[in-house]
C-alpha cells in the first residue's frame, strides 16, 4: 500500500525555506498551538451546529407547521416571512461574530506562531 512515490515536491506546497516535519509536529504539540486550536474549534464548531439546527428548524416548520407559519403578525406580514428574514439576520450576525472573534482571538496567536516558525526558531 505504501510503495508509491513520496508526494511530489511542490504538489502539497512545500516552499524551500519551510519548517521541517519535526518542527511542525513540535508546534502541533505545543501549548500555544493547543490554545489556538481550541479557541478556534470551541467557537466555530458549536456555532456551526447551532446555525444548521436553526436552519433545519426553519425548513421543518415550513414543511410541517403551515398554520403557525401563516399566522399574520401585522398587515400581510406573517410568521413565515419574519422567520425567513430572521435567517438572513442570523447569517449576518454569525458572520460578524465569527470575524470579531477571529480578529481578536485567532489572528494574533496564528501570526505569532507563523512568524516564529518562518524565522526558523
Amino acid at each position, binding site marked *: *500500500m*505504501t510503495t*508509491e*512515490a513520496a*508526494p*511530489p*515536491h511542490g*504538489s*502539497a*506546497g512545500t*516552499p524551500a525555506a*519551510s519548517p521541517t*516535519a519535526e518542527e*511542525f*509536529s513540535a*508546534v502541533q*504539540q505545543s501549548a500555544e*498551538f493547543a490554545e*489556538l*486550536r481550541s479557541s*478556534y474549534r470551541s467557537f*466555530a464548531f458549536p*456555532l*456551526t451546529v447551532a446555525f*444548521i439546527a436553526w*436552519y*433545519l428548524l426553519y*425548513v*421543518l416548520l*415550513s*414543511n410541517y407547521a*403551515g398554520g403557525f*407559519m*401563516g399566522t399574520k403578525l*401585522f*398587515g*400581510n*406580514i*406573517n410568521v*413565515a*416571512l419574519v422567520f*425567513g*428574514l430572521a*435567517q*438572513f439576520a442570523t*447569517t*449576518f450576525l*454569525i*458572520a*460578524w461574530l*465569527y*470575524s470579531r472573534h477571529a480578529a481578536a482571538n*485567532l*489572528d494574533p496567536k*496564528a*501570526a505569532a*506562531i*507563523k512568524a516564529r*516558525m*518562518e524565522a526558523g526558531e
Partner: protein
Amino acid sequence: MSHTLRLDLATTTAAGAGEHRPLIMTLFGLFVVATLVITIWAGRQTKDAADFYAGGRQFTGFQNGLAISGDYMSAASFLGIAGVIALKGYDGFLYSIGFLVAWLVALLLVAEPLRNSGRYTMGDVLAFRMRQRPVRTAAGTSTIVVSIFYLLAQMAGAGVLVSLLLGITSDGGQVAIVALVGVLMILYVTIGGMKGTTWVQMVKAVLLIAGALLITFLVMWKFNFNVSDLLGKAAENSGKGSSFLEPGLKYGITGTSKLDFISLGLALVLGTAGLPHILIRFYTVPTAKAARKSVNWAIGIIGVFYLMTIALGFGAAALLSPKEITDSNPSGNTAAPLLAQAVGGGADSTGGAILLAVISAVAFATILAVVAGLTLASSSSFAHDIYVNVIRKGEATEKEEVRAARWSTVVIGAVAIVLGALARDINIAGLVALAFAVAASANLPTILYSLFWKRFTTRGALWSIYGGLISSVVLVLFSPVVSGNDKTSMFKGVDFHWFPLENPGIVSIPLGFLLGWLGTVLSKEKADPQKFAELEVRSLTGTGAH
C-alpha cells in the same frame, strides 16, 4: 411539478421580445467587448502558474467578495427564484435562504484552512495527507463532474434565455448561441486565466446588483415602499389569497414532496462549501484573513441580492397576471424581465423596452461569468491534479502546467459546447440540484474529515469521494428527474425510476460522511500523524502558505 429551480425549454417567447432584439443585442455586445478588453489586459499580466490559477493572489478581500458573488449568483438564482416566487409565492423564497445560509459553512469551516493549506485546487487540500495519485484522481474526477453538470445547466439556460428574450427559436439559432457562449468562456479563461475571469465576475456582480436594485426600487416606489401592501396585492393578484404568502404551495403537497424539500434544503446548505469553482476563488487573495473578508463581503452582497428577490418575485406576482407570466414561460423564468418591462411603463413604452433590454443583458452577463468560473475550475483541476500530479507524477515544469491548463480549457469548453447543444431539451433542474448534491455528498465530507479528523486515511477519502459521487449520480438516474414523469422527466414515455425524490441529498450526504468514516476504520494503513500535524499547523496559522 418540480422541486427544484428550472429553466426548462419553453417554446413561447417573451411578449414582444423580438422587437427589442436590436437593443438587447447592443447591450449584450457592449458587455462582450468590455469583458474581452479586460481579458486581454489581464492576459498580458498572466505570466506564471499562480497568475493563471489564482490571479497572482493579489486581489483584495472586497474584490474577491464581489467576484465570489458574481461566480455564485447564476441565472438560476436571478431568473429562477424570481420566477418561482412569482408563481408559487413564499416557497420560492426558501431557495434564497438556503443559498445564503450555506455561506456560513464556507466561512466557519472551509475558506481559511483551504486558503492556508492549498495552492491551486480543491485536490491540493484533499491529497495533502494522503497518497497523492489516487486521491488527486478522485478529487479531479469529482471537480470535473460537479463543474460539468453545473456548466451544462448554464449553457442550456443560455439557449432557453435566447429563445425567450430574443425570439430565436430555431434549432440552428440556439446551437449558435450555445457555441457563442462556449467560445467566449474559452477565450476568457485561456487568455485571461483567473485574473480575467475574476474581473469578468466583478463586472457582472456590479451589473446584476445594479439591475436588481433598480427594479426593486421601481417596484417599491409603486407601493409607496410599503411591503405589506406589496404582499397583499401579490396574494390577491395570484388568485391564491393568503396561502400565497405561506410555505407549502410548491412543496407542501404530499409527504414525498415535503421530504424532497428537506433533501433539497440539505443539499443547498451543505453543497456551497464543496463547489470547486467557489473554493478556488479563495486562492486569489494573499492571506486567510483576506479570504475571511471576501466571504464576509460575499455574504453581504449575496444577502442583499436575495432580499431583493422578495421585491422581484412578489412584485412580478403583484404587477403581472399569472397568465402573462406562464404564457411567456411555464416555470416563470421570464418573470423578472417582464417585471422590468412593466415597471418601466409597460410593453409599448420606451421605458419598458429599455428596462427589458437591460435586464436581459444582465441575465446574459450572469451566465457568461458563471460558465467562465466553472470552466476554469475544471481545467485547473485537470491540469494540476490529474495531468501534473498523476500523469506526470509531479515532474512537469510550470510552463508545461500552464500550457496543459490552457489546452484543457479548450477541450472542456469544446465538450461543454457539444453537450450543451445536445442537452438543450433536458431537465436543467436535475443538473443544478445534482451539482449541489454531489458537492455536498462527495466533496464536503472529504474536506471536513481531511482538515479536522486526525485518523482519516486515503481509503476513507476515496470512499467518501467516490461513494458520495456515485450514490448521488445513481439516485438521480433512477429518480423522477430522469424518468417516470411525462411532464418534467428528461426521458418522456419511459419509467425506470424507483427513487421517489428529485434530490438525492437526504440519502447521499449522510452516506458520503458514513463511507468516509467506514473507509477509515477499515483501513489497514494508519493515518500519518506527521502529515496531519503539518496540515493542522499550516491550516490554522498560515505557516508556509503560498
